[in-house]
């Protein structure tokens, strides 16, 4: 009797949210598979084309390079992020440092800023007469860097901004991990005469393996979906050199109105990330049973 009313209450709590999730997330995901089989420009009736979109997409040089570029952008950013945010965390973890909270806050501020605003600021700083060139590179090296003008440089310029807005975030995750390591481990290592680097490689890094994995997975997912930075800083240019996958989808769907085609590209996005998404879900649900 009592359990029955309780299980009914359970449904009341859960079902409304589940319905919203089904309508606004799960249904669109399933629908993207259907849309990918059609050619459709929103105005005219949909035309069934079977797998033509997939065939065209896999021969579309623009798509293939956008896809490869996004992978390159993601993997390079993530590799650098892992190192930088870990080093920041080590620097701030020294337990004697009184001002740690202040430094942690300073490193975290870029994380909370509004991404398109960050884009506007860096876009101005990247100009030929902007602060990076006119303030640093021209006086020190006598040359300017074509941050956004060169198609070989622009992607790395945006990557720099990507690192700036996310390093503090992963740093905090590492600090949380570092604080979870019992002090005694280090004390006994010190007694045994282990050097700082020995302690780092024998204690800290092995014990932080789960944190490294989590940072790796979450940063891959976050970076791969980057849209606001390339959109505000370079609009995908010059010569498509900063067109990430999200921009490719956006342009095809909402500028060229190729709805089916863009859906097909989204499916590639989904499939590229699926291993990482599943790893993320595993990591989340493994801890704390």
């Amino acid at each position, binding site marked *: 009797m*009592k*359990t029955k009313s*309780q*299980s009914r*209450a359970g*449904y009341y*709590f859960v079902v*409304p*949210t*589940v319905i919203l*999730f089904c309508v*606004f997330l*799960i*249904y669109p*995901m399933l*629908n*993207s598979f259907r*849309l990918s089989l059609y050619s459709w420009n*929103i105005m005219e009736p949909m035309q069934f084309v079977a797998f033509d979109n997939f065939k065209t997409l896999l021969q579309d040089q623009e798509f293939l390079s956008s896809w490869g570029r996004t992978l390159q952008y993601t993997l390079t950013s993530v590799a650098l992020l892992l190192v930088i945010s870990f080093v920041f965390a080590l620097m701030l973890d020294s337990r004697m440092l009184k001002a740690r*909270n202040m430094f942690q*806050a300073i*490193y*975290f*501020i*870029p994380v*909370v*800023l*509004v991404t*398109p*605003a960050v884009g*506007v600021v860096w876009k*101005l*700083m990247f100009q030929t*007469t902007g602060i990076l060139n*006119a303030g640093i590179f*021209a006086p020190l090296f006598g040359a300017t860097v074509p941050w956004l003008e060169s198609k070989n440089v622009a992607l790395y310029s945006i990557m720099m901004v990507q690192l*700036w807005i996310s390093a*503090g975030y992963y740093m*905090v*995750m590492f600090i*949380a991990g570092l604080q979870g390591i019992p002090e005694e481990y280090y004390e006994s290592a010190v007694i045994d005469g282990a050097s700082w680097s020995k302690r780092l490689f024998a204690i800290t890094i092995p014990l932080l393996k789960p*944190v490294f994995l989590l940072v790796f997975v*979450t940063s891959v*997912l976050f970076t791969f*979906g980057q849209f*606001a930075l390339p959109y505000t800083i370079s609009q995908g240019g010059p010569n498509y050199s900063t067109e990430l996958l*999200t921009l490719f989808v*956006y342009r095809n*769907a909402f500028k060229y109105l190729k*709805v089916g085609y863009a*859906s097909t590209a*989204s499916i590639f*996005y*989904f499939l590229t*990330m699926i291993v990482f998404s599943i790893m993320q*879900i595993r990591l*989340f*649900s493994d*801890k*704390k049973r």
Partner: protein
Amino acid sequence: MLFPFIWMILGSFKYNKDVLSVPVRLLPPEWNFSSYRNAFAAGPFGRYYLNSVIVLVFAVIINVVTCTTAGYGLAKFKFKGRDFFFTLILSTLMIPIQTIIVPLFVLISQLNMVNTYAGIILPLSLSGFGVFLMRQFFYGVPDELLEAARIDGAGEFYIFRRISIPISTVALISLTIFHSQYVWKNLLWPLVVATKTDLRTLTVGISLFSGVFFTPYPEQLAMSVSACIPIVILFMFLSKYFIRGTAMTGIKG
């Protein structure tokens, strides 16, 4: 680390000719105090700001309500299909809004919600991660606490409101802060779904003013500062929660 942030603030007080002038001057040679007034007066920027506030408030309220109720239901009740529902919600972590932007737009236009607040708000208010977070939190709340109230004859919704919500303030604040950032910063979805000037949000406005329209640099920077300053101030007062929220997504659980 803070240099671009400081440069942004100082730049918003410069005159247009001084922002990118050579030789570089960090401090404004002459202070310009009109860029903020111009930014809000010229064009619909004030309107964009208001729209962002509206979207933020409603999206966060819906998010907190859905995450809390569903998280509570999943953690504290046993019923058929519970594990299925939980898996279903967790599986939405695989579909960030970027991956479903096209079919989502199709759905919203079929519901006639393009260029409406509801159309902007609803997709931004759901978060599988938030449900997961609240479920984990309530999982740690001892059952005896609720059992005692049940013996006293309290109804389930009364218990939820009077016992479960009050003990979860810290988790609720963290969730609110976490999700507010997501909504306030989001560019892609409002860019796609709000094409009328009256409904554009701050992030869309900022990218338009810097790209399409000709806008003087100090005004661009003033808009950027105005967009960032509420979160930065919130962060200064509640940095503990920002940091805790982040660490929570990490290993501490």
